[in-house]
């Protein structure tokens, strides 16, 4: 190498070395920047990478009846899960599995789809709510079922089944539709097939019943496979509830109403405790827990008797003659009626040239207030309604709890309707006619009420107090308060006049419900009602009104009865409606009588022992008899 070559090489080497050293400096600077300057930030990202939080579903709160029997509980149930990567041929394994456990071809397709959507090692739920026998069969055949594992979980169960279905409701697997309509951000809802309340108390008190999810921190690798469990936080079970429903009375009511489309409510007149809230026909809530089959759902949904509806709070009916107490009380309060004045009933009343008929074609002759209630004379109440006016009828009705939304933890509780002139103008775009007032006077026309509201009305009439219906006795082992038992703004003498009329209905030989009087000297005060669901034309009336029995079922009259007993010391108020049952005295009163008789026979009305731990906290409620 020549001298000049060597010099040039040295210079160039120095240049190159300098550039390389500079680049090495950049590398060192970058290491410092990433590791030291932003180290903490990257450490956090690395932790986020590796740690997954897995939810631990809580145990759902239990629901008890008045006597401390469980109405809704959690039963250990087996779930079968399958891991795709462990089953060589998932379709074949599922076919084999279908011979051991109930699994329809449609379900198999669902499972296969689900498995293909998820990563190969993610367990997919194949079936839930399985019995021990199924698991035993699966375990015995384990070698033929690669990738199939049974897992123990909790499944909701309704031990008493159908009789409480409308009150307790049911849970079901959370659906996409549920997620769409709720703004609940609880991550539990994202667990596939997680059970949430869909109806009844289960739905209405969903969040407290659900409890709080526990968390388990697990370390996962880059594809999400669990490497180990780190730590966690236990789940908090949902709150327990005790309802005011007395199981025997509820069952009696359900049994008595079998075969009818009907509703019955029994209420403690002293504190508003709902002792029975029965809606017939009913359904088996257990069918919904793991998702109801399409056939079952269709059968329930297409049934003319609407078994899914809780008619006690969701059914609205013209109260018919059971509304006459309201009109009577309104007239007495306004001073436009007294107990002595007779009104002559010729069988009809002419109002503005239209004939308003009494149910009794021949008329009742001269009737006073007590007789008008006893015989349920329509003409008397047409007269009183006209004297009082619709606004005052509605005011009195509201004071008795009609047209007000009952505050109950049940879904779709209806307000009913107590019309005013203003209301008709706004909704029907029509003026109020005097005939509308006459119709309202006998609980027809625009007037609508639910069986629960009628029971509340009866309890208020019986007690003279502002009774509010109460369904929840204990919430999370704490007593829920009894609301509004203050006295009503009616004179006791006026209430007594109405009560006397109601007494006659059941106890006077000519009372409309005399045939349904109580045994053993017990006395009930009541009122029958028959509400038309069709309009009877003049032509039809002249031809002779078709008998109820000859009409198709859904055009027959509704039968109603409200009452309370014992008369001299009221304890229970009842309302019964039999949809399209015909006459109130014939269809509704006998049912009411049997249920009331049972209530009186059961006698004691106290709360039974609770199976929960903190029993000592519970004190008897004011107004509960022991």
């Amino acid at each position, binding site marked *: *190498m020549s001298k000049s*070559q060597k010099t040039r*090489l040295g210079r160039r080497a120095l240049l190159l070395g300098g550039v390389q050293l500079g680049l090495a400096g950049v590398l060192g600077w970058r*290491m410092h920047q990433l590791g030291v300057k932003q180290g903490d930030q*990257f450490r956090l*990202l*690395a*932790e986020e990478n590796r740690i997954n939080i897995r939810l631990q579903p809580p145990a759902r709160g239990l629901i008890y009846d008045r006597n401390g029997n469980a109405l809704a509980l959690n039963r250990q149930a087996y779930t079968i899960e399958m891991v795709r990567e462990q089953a060589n041929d998932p379709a074949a394994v599922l076919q084999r599995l279908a011979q051991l456990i109930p699994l329809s071809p449609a379900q198999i397709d669902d499972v296969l789809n689900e498995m293909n959507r998820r990563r190969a090692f993610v367990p997919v739920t194949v079936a839930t709510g399985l019995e021990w026998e199924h698991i035993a069969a699966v375990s015995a055949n384990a070698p033929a079922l690669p990738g199939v594992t049974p897992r123990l979980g909790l499944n909701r169960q309704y031990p008493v089944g159908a009789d409480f279905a409308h009150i307790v409701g049911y849970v079901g697997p959370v659906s996409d539709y549920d997620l769409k309509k709720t703004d609940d951000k609880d991550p539990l809802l994202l667990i596939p097939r997680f059970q949430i309340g869909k109806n009844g108390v289960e739905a209405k008190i969903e969040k407290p019943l659900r409890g709080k999810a526990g968390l388990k921190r697990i370390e*996962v690798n880059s594809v999400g496979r669990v490497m180990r469990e780190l730590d966690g936080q236990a789940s908090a079970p949902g709150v327990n509830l005790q309802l005011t429903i007395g199981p025997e009375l509820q069952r009696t009511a359900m049994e008595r109403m079998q075969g009818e489309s009907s509703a019955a409510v029994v209420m403690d007149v002293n504190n508003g405790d709902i002792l029975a809230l029965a809606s017939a026909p009913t359904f088996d809530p257990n069918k919904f827990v793991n998702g109801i089959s399409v056939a079952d759902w269709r059968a329930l949904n297409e049934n003319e008797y609407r078994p899914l509806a809780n008619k006690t709070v969701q059914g609205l009916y013209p109260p018919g003659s059971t509304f006459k107490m309201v009109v009577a009380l309104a007239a007495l309060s306004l001073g436009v009626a007294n107990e002595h004045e007779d009104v002559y009933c010729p069988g009809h009343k002419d109002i503005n040239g239209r004939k308003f008929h009494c149910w009794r074609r021949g008329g009742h002759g001269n009737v006073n207030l007590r007789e008008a209630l006893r015989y349920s004379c329509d003409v008397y109440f047409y007269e009183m309604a006209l004297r009082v006016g619709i606004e005052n009828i509605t005011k009195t009705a509201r004071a008795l709890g009609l047209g007000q939304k009952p505050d109950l933890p049940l879904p779709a509780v209806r307000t009913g309707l107590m019309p005013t002139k203003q209301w008709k103008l706004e909704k029907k775009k029509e003026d109020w006619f005097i005939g509308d007032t006459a119709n309202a006077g006998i609980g027809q026309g625009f007037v609508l009420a639910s069986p629960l509201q009628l029971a509340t009305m009866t309890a208020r009439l019986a007690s003279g107090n502002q009774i509010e219906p109460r369904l929840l006795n204990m919430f999370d082992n704490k007593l829920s308060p009894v609301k509004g038992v203050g006295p009503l703004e009616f004179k006791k003498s006026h209430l007594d006049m109405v009560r006397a009329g109601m007494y006659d209905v059941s106890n006077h030989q000519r009372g409309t419900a005399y045939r349904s009087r109580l045994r053993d000297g017990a006395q009930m005060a009541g009122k029958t009602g028959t509400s038309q669901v069709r309009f009877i034309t003049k032509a039809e009336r002249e031809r002779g009104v078709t008998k109820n029995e000859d009409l198709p079922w859904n055009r027959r009259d509704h039968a109603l009865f409200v009452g309370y007993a014992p008369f001299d010391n009221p304890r229970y108020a009842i309302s019964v409606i039999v949809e399209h049952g015909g006459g109130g005295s014939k269809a509704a009163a006998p049912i009411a009588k049997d249920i009331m008789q049972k209530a009186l026979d059961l006698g004691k009305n106290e709360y039974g022992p609770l199976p929960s731990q903190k029993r000592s906290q519970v004190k008897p409620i004011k107004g509960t008899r022991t």
Partner: protein
Amino acid sequence: MSMLSNRQSTPTGLRKVLYFHWPLAILLVAVCSAGFLMLFSVAGGKFSTWAEPQVMRFGIGFVAMIIIGFTPINVWRNMSIPAYVIGIGLLVFVEYFGATGKGAQRWIDLGFMKLQPSEMMKIALVMIVAMYYDWLDEDRVSKPLWLLPPIVLTALPVALVLNQPDLGTAILLAGGAGVIMLLAGVSLWYFGAAIGAIGGVVWAVIASKGTEFQILKDYQYRRIETFLDPSSDPLGSGYHITQSKIALGSGGFSGRGYMEGTQSRLNFLPEKHTDFIFTTLAEEFGFMGGITLLILYILIIFCCYVTAMQNRNRFAALLTLGVAATFFFYFSVNMLMVMGLAPVVGVPLPLVSYGGSAMLVLLGAFGLVQSAHIHRPR
């Protein structure tokens, strides 16, 4: 007479051991050991997975280095042309018979190891270009016509490697040859022009995207795009860069501890035993570990510079610096890549990443450096 003077100054036989560049050898052993340590760690504490084969190759490579080092440098000078020809032949061979891995045809399966001709070519190219400038008259170095041979010599393997396609190796090949041309004294104007031309090519590459004249493969475009903005596709191609930066950064100053790196242990790191092994090292030993490795690398380069400057044999000096430059390109491109400063082009971390060809070729190349050192004219 010259024979006599040579014999006086140049060691012979086992005496060569005394003239071996021991500091360089020890530095190489240190770097390789760091590699064994990391390969043991990323295998989850298993020696047999990666560390064991790597140790065996190191053993073979180290013996090869000594043998190559003991062989006179002139022998290697004469071997330059055959080595280059064989290298080109093998590159052509893999084009048709090579096994394909990760979309690139790269190796020939010899049974006991997988031979990557492109790795061999890196050294063969440096040798032949060094030989060329050793042979070329001083005043012809910057003559345009005389620039042509090295450019053709470089362009041929670069084209073959790009065709595999292996952008990383192509850059290293061109870089290695370019550095020797620079050291040989080619006018700096040419380098200015070359940089301008590369800029033009980059522009053409980007501009051609999506047209029917598209120069690079789609996946290479994606890599460039994600390099420019890794967050644009955090679960797709940006995943590698993002996860690798997380691993590097989470090591902090002193690291999370040996075998405690969650990023690599839980498989968040891509290619954790090959191209991205540096991230595991930085995760487990932190900034200190990373900078220590960097200093070891720089010391190796420094040793090469010192011996090259003392060497009056032009071929030996150019070869030594060429090997050093190639080695520098290796680790700097790899580190720039895993630290998110360069696109992911697929260059291993020299002597640390798992891989037989690179290990053998690099140790062989340092054998040439040893040979140049031992047989330097005195």
